[in-house]
């Protein structure tokens, strides 16, 4: 079977572009090359923007970093805020932060998982699932859902609101807060703030259950199509707690093969560099990571809710664990690789987040004010966290003058790069090949991408891998001059 990554004879083929990919965060486009009979020859998801974070962090004082790097992403800023803080905890010698600081960070993080999962499912993806992949463009959005399924849409709005309030109370602001710092947190929460959140919990837990019921119902109604759509087998990767439990804030790296056999387990975050290598392709600013031991061809993997739920041994909260077991039972114990199953896993994690938030709000440590820890300085810090869309790795080197000398970020969406590309190629083979291409068919491609909940904004951090262009515009925006220098001249 043709891999569809590269057309053998691109000259003379028709090009169709889905530009921009919509109802996802960030900038991406898909290009499809077709021959005269509409046979598909090439399908690619391109990440088309870069913003250069890894480079301009260099030379900055380390304490600025948790606040700077969260500007990678407005949907999951807390992930970057906390991954950077965890890495820099090591630099300031806080090998163990205080219980209150860890619990406040966890509260912030699970609040974010909850709001991001609600946003992704209800605001962005549910229109495809409720109306059909080829429903008219005019209704295939959250406004259409608000009109046709007002209860579901309002549930999404209110779940997101609750998660954002958890973030506001722990971080100071809903988007780009400042609560976490190297060595701990800088803000207590008050009994009144805690009570405000506690009061919201009964509704949130009920809405979370209703979300799982909705996805299970949609799966039941279209079972064969859901299980087949864009499905590609791959390895799975995530962090897990040391006892194998699902833990989205901290843990060790585990990977399984496509049949569920454990490939590596118990890998400390600091050893990520021995585990993962990255390849570059000419047509995307997003790199292609793989497990070094298996090589690029066989070593790529999925991350995110579907990987996490099947990589862990159990979920340490009762209602989400029951939901996980019900999910696993529908697959008869086989590993599920269907992209649409991400939505189900996502709703189970949303319930889990609500349960964790409830536990934390009930914990007396939460209101204490022992916030900061410190110890002997170090020069290297690696922080790994499970962001809403998957494993997020931040790695910093800091010199004796407190300045960052090196920064490496592997964001969730980058891990899923190969998997998303394979998924859309599978969809193109199944639905587009040889047919007249309609808008509705093209949306099938986007449905497969959306299932992974890509954060294409996060994925645009790399500065290094680009051709160099200088454009001079005048005040009206007209191009006065442009110089291009490609990389080959620099090598």
């Amino acid at each position, binding site marked *: 079977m043709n891999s569809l990554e590269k057309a053998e004879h691109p000259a003379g083929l028709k090009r169709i572009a889905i530009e921009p990919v919509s109802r996802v965060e960030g900038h991406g486009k898909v290009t499809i090359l077709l021959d005269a009979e509409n046979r598909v020859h090439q399908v690619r998801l391109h990440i088309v923007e870069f913003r250069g974070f890894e480079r301009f962090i260099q030379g900055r004082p380390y304490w600025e970093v948790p606040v700077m790097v969260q500007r990678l992403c407005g949907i999951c800023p807390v992930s970057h805020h906390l991954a950077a803080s965890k890495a820099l905890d090591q630099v300031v010698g806080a090998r163990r932060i205080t219980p209150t600081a860890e619990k406040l960070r966890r509260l912030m993080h699970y609040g974010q998982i909850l709001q991001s999962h609600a946003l992704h499912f209800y605001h962005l993806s549910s229109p495809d699932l409720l109306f059909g992949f080829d429903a008219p463009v005019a209704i295939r959005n959250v406004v259409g859902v608000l009109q046709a399924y007002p209860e579901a849409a309002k549930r999404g709005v209110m779940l997101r609101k609750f998660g954002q309030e958890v973030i506001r109370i722990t971080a100071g602001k809903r988007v780009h807060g400042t609560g976490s710092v190297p060595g701990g947190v800088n803000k207590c929460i008050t009994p009144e703030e805690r009570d405000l959140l506690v009061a919201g919990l009964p509704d949130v837990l009920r809405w979370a259950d209703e979300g799982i019921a909705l996805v299970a119902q949609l799966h039941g109604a279209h079972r064969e199509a859901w299980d087949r759509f864009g499905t590609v087998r791959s390895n799975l990767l995530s962090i897990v707690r040391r006892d194998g439990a699902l833990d989205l804030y901290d843990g060790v790296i585990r990977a399984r093969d496509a049949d569920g056999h454990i490939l590596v387990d118990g890998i400390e975050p600091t050893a990520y560099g021995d585990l993962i290598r990255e390849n570059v392709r000419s*047509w995307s600013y997003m790199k292609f990571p793989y497990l070094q031991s298996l090589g690029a061809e066989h070593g790529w993997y999925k991350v995110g809710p579907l990987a996490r739920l099947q990589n862990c041994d159990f979920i340490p909260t009762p209602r989400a664990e029951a939901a996980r077991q019900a999910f696993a039972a529908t697959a008869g114990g086989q590993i599920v690789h269907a992209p649409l199953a991400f939505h189900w896993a996502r709703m189970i994690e949303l319930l889990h987040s609500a349960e964790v938030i409830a536990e934390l709000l009930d914990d007396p440590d939460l209101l204490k004010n022992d916030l900061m820890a410190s110890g002997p300085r170090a020069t290297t810090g690696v922080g790994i966290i499970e962001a809403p869309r998957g494993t997020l790795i931040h790695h910093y080197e800091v010199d004796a003058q407190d300045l960052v000398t090196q920064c490496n970020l592997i964001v969730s969406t980058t891990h899923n790069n190969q998997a998303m590309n394979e998924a859309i190629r599978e969809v193109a083979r199944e639905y587009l090949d040889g047919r007249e291409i309609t808008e509705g068919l093209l949306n099938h491609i986007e449905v497969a991408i959306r299932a992974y909940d890509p954060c294409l904004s996060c994925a645009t951090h790399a500065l290094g891998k680009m051709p160099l262009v200088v*454009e001079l515009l005048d005040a009206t925006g007209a191009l006065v001059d442009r110089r291009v220098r490609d990389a080959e001249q620099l090598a």
Partner: protein
Amino acid sequence: MNPERPKRKLRVATTSLAGCFGCHMSFLDIDERLIELLEHIEFDASPLTDIKTPGQCDLGLIEGGLCNAENVHVLLNMRQKCRILVAMGACAINGGLPAQRNHLDIRDCLQTVYLTGVGLNRGFIPNDPELPLPLDQVHPLHDVVKIDYFLPGCPPPADAIWQFLTDLIAGRTPQLGHGLIHYD
């Protein structure tokens, strides 16, 4: 808002250029007021819809600055199609955090970051014609087109976005009162 006056809905396009979507998130942070807002506006091209390019619109909300040629193209088109154009947030107004790269020499960046990158299997620079060409520096929107309103903040607070939109819908000149203008 004045419910007695039935009016045509304002047609609104939104886009994110070199931003992080945080301004769009802050827009959604109006929470359930979104439902009320939808009685007065309708979305054209936006990350929230599948309309890929804007038609004629009353209002365009743009987050993010300009970091590549495609950003410039999208901005020029938005200016052409939108009666009122708003620079929403720090990046649209002054380039924001991505403009931190403006003081760097790109040749050095390429050589140091790319050639010494951690964990790379093989150095290689993406150069496919499908990738839009980066600009040498990140620019604010008003470097290229006329901007009618600037909403500051990283991101602008949801209440500021709400105040701005409800003023416009009611036909008032938007006024942001105490606490609604801040820059963090």
